[in-house]
């Protein structure tokens, strides 16, 4: 049971640690940066001068507080964009990489169903998502305390926990490209373009009368600024993301069941 998932997760440990260290450094950097913003920078003036689309894209409405600052720099930028695109890219290589390199031949000669191969390859990414969130949450808590602008642990736990469904969806988008493409590079480019494209799309339409179109983008369902500055926890949005993940993974498994390898 789950032998492939466990094997896959083990292979990703080094990458997960590197990612955790990198994003922790990012968090520390911005935490170190904050005090000079808090004291020497007129945030209200800065935000007013920006186009509303921009404010919306990066959740800048509460930029003056440490929570708002982190929501923008760490969670909108590093989590929604960087980590979302990275996970889509990484998951896009899961199946297409094995098909392209012909590793899939030996794998499929094992008595495992196609659906199981796809699902377990996806599950191998989950521990990495959990690890990165756990590590960076802890580091961020420490960093903000160190600079004298502490963020409550509950706030950090909330934003990291609620980011997980979003990140799972991004990885599931990558998986969908991975089963459809025959080359890893094609799948990766498609997945990255889709996640980033959805971000841009959602940002742009949200300032128009067609904001409802943005419902197709996973970014719509994760609002770090609301979580950190207003303590608004949208569990329905998280559930929608989890449902989307399940649908994408199931559809990917079903597609892979029927295709020639």
């Amino acid at each position: 049971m789950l032998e492939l998932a466990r094997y896959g997760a083990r292979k990703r440990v080094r990458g997960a640690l590197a990612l955790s260290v990198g994003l922790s450094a990012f968090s520390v950097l911005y935490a170190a940066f904050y005090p000079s913003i808090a004291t020497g920078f007129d945030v209200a003036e800065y935000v007013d001068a920006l186009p509303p689309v921009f404010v919306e894209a990066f959740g800048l409405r509460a930029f003056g507080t440490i929570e708002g600052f982190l929501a923008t720099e760490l969670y909108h930028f590093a989590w929604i964009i960087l980590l979302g695109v990275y996970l889509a890219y990484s998951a896009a290589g899961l199946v297409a990489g094995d098909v392209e390199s012909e590793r899939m031949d030996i794998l499929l000669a094992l008595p495992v169903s196609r659906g199981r191969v796809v699902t377990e390859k996806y599950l191998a990414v989950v521990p990495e998502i959990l690890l990165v969130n756990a590590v960076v949450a802890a580091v961020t808590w420490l960093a903000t305390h160190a600079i004298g602008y502490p963020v409550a642990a509950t706030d950090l736990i909330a934003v990291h926990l609620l980011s997980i469904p979003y990140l799972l969806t991004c990885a599931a988008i990558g998986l969908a490209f991975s089963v459809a493409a025959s080359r890893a590079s094609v799948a990766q480019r498609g997945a990255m373009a889709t996640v980033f494209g959805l971000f841009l799309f959602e940002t742009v339409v949200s300032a128009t009368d067609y904001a409802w179109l943005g419902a197709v983008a996973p970014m719509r369902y994760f609002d770090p600024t609301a979580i950190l500055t207003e303590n608004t926890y949208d569990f329905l949005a998280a559930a929608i993301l989890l449902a989307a993940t399940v649908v994408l993974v199931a559809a990917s498994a079903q597609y892979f069941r029927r295709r020639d390898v």
Partner: protein
Amino acid sequence: MAGRDNLHPRVRCPPSMAAIEIDRLTKRYGDLAAVSDLTLSIESGEVFGYLGPNGAGKTTTIRILLGLQSPTTGTASVLGHDMTVESQRLDALERVGYLPSNPRFDEQSTGREVLDLHESIKGGERRDELLDLFTPPVEREIREYSTGNVQKLGLVQAFMHDPDVVVMDEPTSGLDPLLQERFNEFVRDERERGTTMLFSSHVLSEVRRVCDRVGVLREGELVTVEDVHDLLDRSGKHIRLRVAGDPPENAFDLDGVSDVSRWRDGGETAFSFTFTGDVNDLVAEFEAYDLRELDVEEAPLEDVFLTFYGESDA
């Protein structure tokens, strides 16, 4: 475990059931038919050689047989299980081993990690025995492996769960002669144990050494299926000889002589020809001449098969 030694091979599957059945298999890619109306039956315990030039459709047949690709029409079954139906295919794969041409593994894994994964899913009762025989460097990462080492790992992986049927695609390509010989010996031992084996090759001399029957594929069509020995008998012998002097025109003009070449060499005349007739007639013919040198060889299978896939390829 009882019944697993060479003297008492375990009964692999009911003798009445063919181990591999392919019926009117066709695989088309647009206008191109990679495999066309292929019908083939491989008996339990048989070693079957699947021959043909590159692009003939051997690999396509094998990949359809293992469920990697689906046929356009026709069926393929292994141990009585329809390989196009996933639930049946999974049942069959528990008892099947596969060695693809150019086997590929995760480069960052060690051989041990890969074998552990395989063992956790399909079992590995023969793993240690096979590692003693083939010795891939399991502690090292696969990206450091030579072609031979990858092939060795592939062989261990294919046989470690003691399968009833093993399908191999070009198993000896890239192997040095020593390893090829070890492989041949291994196949002969496996045959004694009752394992059914299908392997595709264009190394004909190996096929002749280990196979019971041979099928020849050409441009997606099965041209013939024959017993290896029948083929060899039909192909006859290559004779090279030298006689003193200059024999008459009709020298060695017997039934069963073909492709005659003759040339003068100093005070002697040399002949070479293929002979499929009665050896006694040939010996009688020698008495008329002063025989200086005589070489008798089995005709290489190459010559036989060229008649199947030589003509229109020229």
